[in-house]
């Protein structure tokens, strides 16, 4: 993948423009002048323009992923803000929110500022999510107000569930001061116990310790009740079970401040895929049954689940090339995201491409309070060019992350991001 500075005058010519903000699809050109949108539709192309022929391709907003782990500071051997940015651009993402479970964790205004400063040198927009509790220890509230002033866009102890219900209540109450979302990795640690995969028929076959869907749904239910009680904004990350979808659907009827995300891997795989003990599929919460997968799809189709987020979680080869109990939880997901979700939701489930794009653009941006009118004149170009019909097989060459722990190798995907334009750069994927 090549990343270059964009030309002073760049024209994306003859593409199908999908504007997920206005909800319009039309043929036309996009003129980008000095990195900013200068015109959209039928435009008079300046003489010195660099022209990219986009006929047969889709031009749309850059994707936004509100749940990634870029491991900086602390584990730059797995990923850094720079290498994570490349992975993001390979997948069409121009904006990401990084989780605070770094080393040290992002639990002070100073550490939020560290990310903001380093992100300035990256070719995508990176927003830090601050920790809810100091050291992610689950006991003491962080300086949320000051972290917000430094640029934190949400709060989460992701990776570690907020086990104590009273602590979760306090966090939600306090967050109303900033009106930012609290994102709780919902897994009851007692019910999860030593579980390494979904508890069901397959875990029984394999003799692996099961992690029941109840571990997720019981805590999601608790969080939903607390969110309603406090009036705070709750965002439920990586929903994996039918039961959790059900709880969220019910609560959303009366509470529009609740939002939820789903990952490509939970939409793409079911627990049958773990039969060969592939540690790249070891993830928290776990990949569940086909019935759960179908329920997640239904949740996406009826709006219960608002957006797609990858939970991009890089790990070293050594972390994964080991026995199942010792292998780390998590998988990379930025590069394979669009091809995977487009295949499942559009090709298999009949969703429109426009609706899918909203799940990757406007919807996650709304959750985090980012502007969504990206085709407006004078706006910094944050766009992608997509070949939505391209069938391709995911392989190592598509990975830009510093880590390679993907379960998507040799999987047929559908729809590929060709160019990503962000922060004055353009990629040739």
């Amino acid at each position, binding site marked *: 993948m090549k990343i270059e500075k964009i030309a002073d005058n760049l024209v994306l010519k003859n593409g199908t423009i999908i504007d997920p903000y206005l909800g319009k699809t039309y043929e036309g050109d996009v003129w980008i002048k000095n990195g900013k949108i200068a015109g959209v539709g039928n435009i008079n192309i300046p003489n010195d323009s660099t022209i990219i022929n986009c006929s047969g391709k889709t031009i749309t907003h850059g994707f936004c992923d509100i749940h990634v782990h870029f491991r900086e500071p602390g584990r730059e051997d797995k990923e850094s803000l720079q290498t994570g940015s490349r992975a993001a651009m390979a997948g069409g993402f121009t904006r990401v929110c990084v989780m605070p479970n770094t080393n040290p964790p992002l639990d002070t205004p100073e550490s939020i500022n560290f990310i903001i400063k380093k992100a300035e040198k990256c070719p995508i927009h990176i927003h830090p999510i601050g920790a809810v509790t100091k050291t992610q220890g689950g006991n003491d509230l962080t300086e949320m107000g000051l972290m917000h002033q430094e640029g934190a866009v949400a709060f989460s102890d992701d990776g570690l569930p907020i086990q104590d219900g009273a602590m979760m209540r306090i966090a939600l109450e306090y967050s109303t001061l900033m009106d930012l979302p609290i994102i709780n990795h919902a897994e009851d640690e007692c019910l999860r116990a030593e579980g390494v995969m979904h*508890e*069901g*028929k397959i*875990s*029984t*076959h*394999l*003799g*692996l*310790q*099961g992690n029941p869907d109840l571990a997720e749904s019981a805590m999601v239910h608790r969080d939903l009740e607390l969110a309603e009680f406090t009036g705070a904004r709750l965002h439920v990350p990586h929903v994996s079970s039918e039961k959790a979808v059900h709880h969220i659907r019910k609560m959303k009827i009366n509470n529009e401040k609740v939002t939820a995300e789903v990952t490509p891997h939970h939409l793409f795989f079911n627990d049958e895929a773990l039969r*060969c*003990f592939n540690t790249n599929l070891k993830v928290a919460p776990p990949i569940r049954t086909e019935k759960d997968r179908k329920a997640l799809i239904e949740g996406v189709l009826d709006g219960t689940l608002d957006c797609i987020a990858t939970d991009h979680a890089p790990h070293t080869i*050594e972390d994964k*090339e*080991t*026995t*199942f*109990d*010792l292998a780390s939880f998590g998988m990379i997901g930025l590069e394979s995201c669009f091809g995977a979700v487009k295949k499942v939701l559009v090709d298999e489930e009949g969703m429109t491409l426009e609706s899918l794009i909203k799940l990757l653009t406007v919807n996650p941006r709304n959750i985090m309070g980012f502007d969504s009118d990206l085709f407006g004149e004078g706006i910094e170009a944050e766009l992608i060019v997509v070949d939505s019909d391209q069938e391709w097989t995911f392989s190592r060459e598509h990975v830009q992350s510093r880590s390679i722990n993907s379960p998507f190798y040799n999987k047929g995907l559908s729809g590929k991001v060709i160019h990503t334009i962000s922060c004055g750069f353009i990629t040739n994927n």
Partner: protein
Amino acid sequence: MMLQHKHLLGLEGYPAEDIQTIIDTAFKFREVLDRPIKKVPSLQGVTIVNLFFENSTRTRISFELAQKRLSADTVNFSASSSSLKKGESFKDTAQNIEAMKIDAVVMRHPTPGAPKLLTEFIDAVVINAGDGTHEHPTQAILDMMSLHEKFGKLKGLKIGIVGDISHSRVALSNIYGLLIMGAEVTLCGPPNLIPPFIKELGVEVSTQIDEVIEWADALNVLRIQRERMGLGLVPSTREYRAMFGLTQERLDTHKKEIVIMHPGPMNRGVEIDGTVADGDQAIILDQVLNGVASRMAILYLLCGGKSSEGDES
């Protein structure tokens, strides 16, 4: 190759005809074990590593004896899993062993799937001697051989497996093997020690041991680990004995012919009474001898390709 699979990782999906071949071969080796000179040259020149990441005196001795009876060269490698966590990675251990040019590895490991992972790192034949709560295929084969010895068949037999099913690789391999061979299986134990999805494997579940005794041709009584007693999973030893123990009184009230098995080591007076274990209906010591014969058969069938047909003189 005399069996369809290069390795013996587990009995899930294992071909019935291969299980039968192993059992038939095991009976031939059993004859060898009854002779004054109990050694055959079948695996001369074959090197086997016994790689044990977990203590297991019985299984290891059984394998070692089987290897010696077949004239194989053996090396023992023991590593506790805790030292593995800190030090050398599993991959490094595996590759070191591979570099020493050995023909087969017999492995015991606390983690399900570890033998499968081993096959990805080495070329040698891998025999699973127990992987965590997953499988223990050689135990199931010796159990089936013992049943075959007693009943002359496996098809149609009614087998009860009693005890802590959730934490038992013996149960899982027995379930796979017995169902493949056409037997019926009913599991019996405390409800919280029976996995909720186990019925999907094709077995029945009962919590009433007396019902299972009435129904079964044979009972395989599993060891209930004392560590689980009083730790939330089992309220107490006496309660377990009262509800699920194969006591002499209980057996006497049923007045029926039933074969009693136990994979060992036993907790006499807990899951099984000493008098039952030592009684006429028990075949527990036959299981031990058949264990050596079964493992000889498995080693011979999987590693015997290089040497000439073992003439048993």
